[in-house]
């Protein structure tokens, strides 16, 4: 089945993650069909991809010939029916179970029987997402790390009904695409978010408990543990509202008190302190420069 994957569809390709996944696929030589609802978003994503490849050439990471080939592999559509040509469809749409189930249900009627479906979900159950379509044996979890075009790691998870053949074919595709797959069970947050969401919440609770300032907490974690970013810097980067959504996805499933939204986080989101994107979160920002805790 691995050799049969020639054409890859990416749903949600106007988004940051979807656009990155499309770059990974096209760069590895697969015909890549980018699907999203709005033409404008796809046009913008195309421009960003061209910019990314141009920089790759500038930095000597890619030849001009490979750049041309990768760009020629990329095409876009706003018609879901066009994904009928795909051997593998990777969805990176809004993180909502019903949305993802409905998408796979629609794709089920469009794509040929051999087409594999992969979900880039970071928190939802692959088994539950797969329940939205008839070909549950051909649905796998394929969670890319952000930014997908730079990060090699992919968490690969089979659902309860995923066949070994499908899982191996999807695994082989990630390797052919130059990525680094790791196998995890279909559990909330897989490895990355299962460790990261409660850890980040603990850092917020430490601020609230007066243990230390955000700057001192981040410095301690970076200097003491060798992490590239402190937890509060990271939350500011991903957005405090995103952290709330992650908590809301996790806590009802895990009932882990560390996954529950910390009260300080709720207050900060209510106050509009959403992080870097608004210039204020655990730190204040002037342009791109962090100037205080």
């Amino acid at each position, binding site marked *: 089945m691995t050799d049969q994957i020639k054409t890859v569809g990416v749903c949600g390709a106007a988004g940051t993650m979807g656009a990155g996944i499309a770059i990974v696929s096209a760069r590895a030589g697969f015909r890549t069909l980018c699907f999203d609802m709005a033409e404008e978003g796809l046009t913008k994503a195309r421009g960003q991809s061209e910019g990314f490849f141009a920089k790759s050439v500038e930095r000597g990471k890619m030849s001009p010939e490979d750049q041309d080939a990768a760009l020629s592999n990329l095409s876009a559509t706003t018609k879901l029916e066009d994904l009928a040509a795909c051997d593998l469809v990777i969805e990176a749409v809004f993180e909502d179970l019903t949305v993802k189930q409905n998408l796979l249900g629609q794709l089920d009627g469009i794509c040929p029987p051999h087409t594999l479906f992969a979900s880039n979900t970071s928190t939802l159950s692959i088994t539950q997402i797969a329940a939205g379509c008839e070909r549950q044996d051909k649905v796998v979890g394929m969670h890319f790390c952000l930014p997908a075009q730079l990060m090699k*790691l992919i968490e690969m998870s089979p659902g309860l009904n995923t066949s070994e053949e499908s899982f191996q074919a999807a695994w082989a595709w990630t390797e052919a695409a130059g990525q680094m797959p790791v196998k995890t069970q279909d559990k909330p947050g897989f490895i990355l978010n299962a460790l990261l969401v409660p850890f980040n919440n603990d850092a917020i609770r430490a601020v609230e408990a007066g243990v230390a300032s955000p700057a001192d907490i981040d410095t301690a974690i970076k200097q003491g543990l060798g992490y590239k970013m402190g937890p509060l810097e990271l939350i500011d980067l991903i957005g405090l509202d995103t952290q709330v959504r992650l908590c809301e996805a996790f806590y009802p499933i895990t009932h882990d008190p560390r996954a529950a939204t910390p009260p300080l986080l709720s207050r900060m989101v209510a106050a509009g302190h959403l992080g870097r994107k608004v210039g204020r979160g655990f730190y204040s920002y002037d342009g791109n420069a962090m100037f205080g805790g």
Partner: protein
Amino acid sequence: MHMNYAIIMHGESRSFPEDEAFLQGAAPEADITIHLGGGADADLTKTAVLVELTTECLGVYTGEDAGTEGSNMLGFARYRNGDDAPSDLIELVRQPASDEAAIEAARAVFEAAGFQVVVCADQQGRIIDRLVRPKYNDALRFLDEGLAAAADIDLTCRHGLGYADGPIERVERGGLVHHYEVSQRLFETYGGPGFAPARRAHVAKQRSDRDG
């Protein structure tokens, strides 16, 4: 800025286990006194009295007074992952009414010696252990539950999160018995389930006790 400091050894130091430059740079007498190895003597004539901490709080040495405690006596620990070599991070522990001049003097002493200093309240686990011990317990539990192989958990954290090392390799390198002791102290203090030592830490502790 060079700051004179004197060192009083009470026992083996986890922060400065070797005969390193910081120890050699001490003066016989100074206005800043650093107590290493589990002991301390109050001395209000000094600018700062610094007490090396392990898993205990500074209040054990100073006493506490309804949130008004604080003096020229501060706690500190050089962060160290169990048996790993000490890091260059100093967690400086203050109380609500700690003398600000003492804090600045302590910071200056350590920074002059090349350490990075962060200031934290006198709470169990300070900053790092309070945050990472639940994560290590989670990782050990994930291993038991078959979420992924140990190598894959570590690989995921290194490549997906940019960590220098993975949680399983790190906690095992530092020692599961050490992890048990730090986690258990946090669990006894705060009671949160994330602090409860993971099964593998219990096993390591029981084996250690059995072997004497």
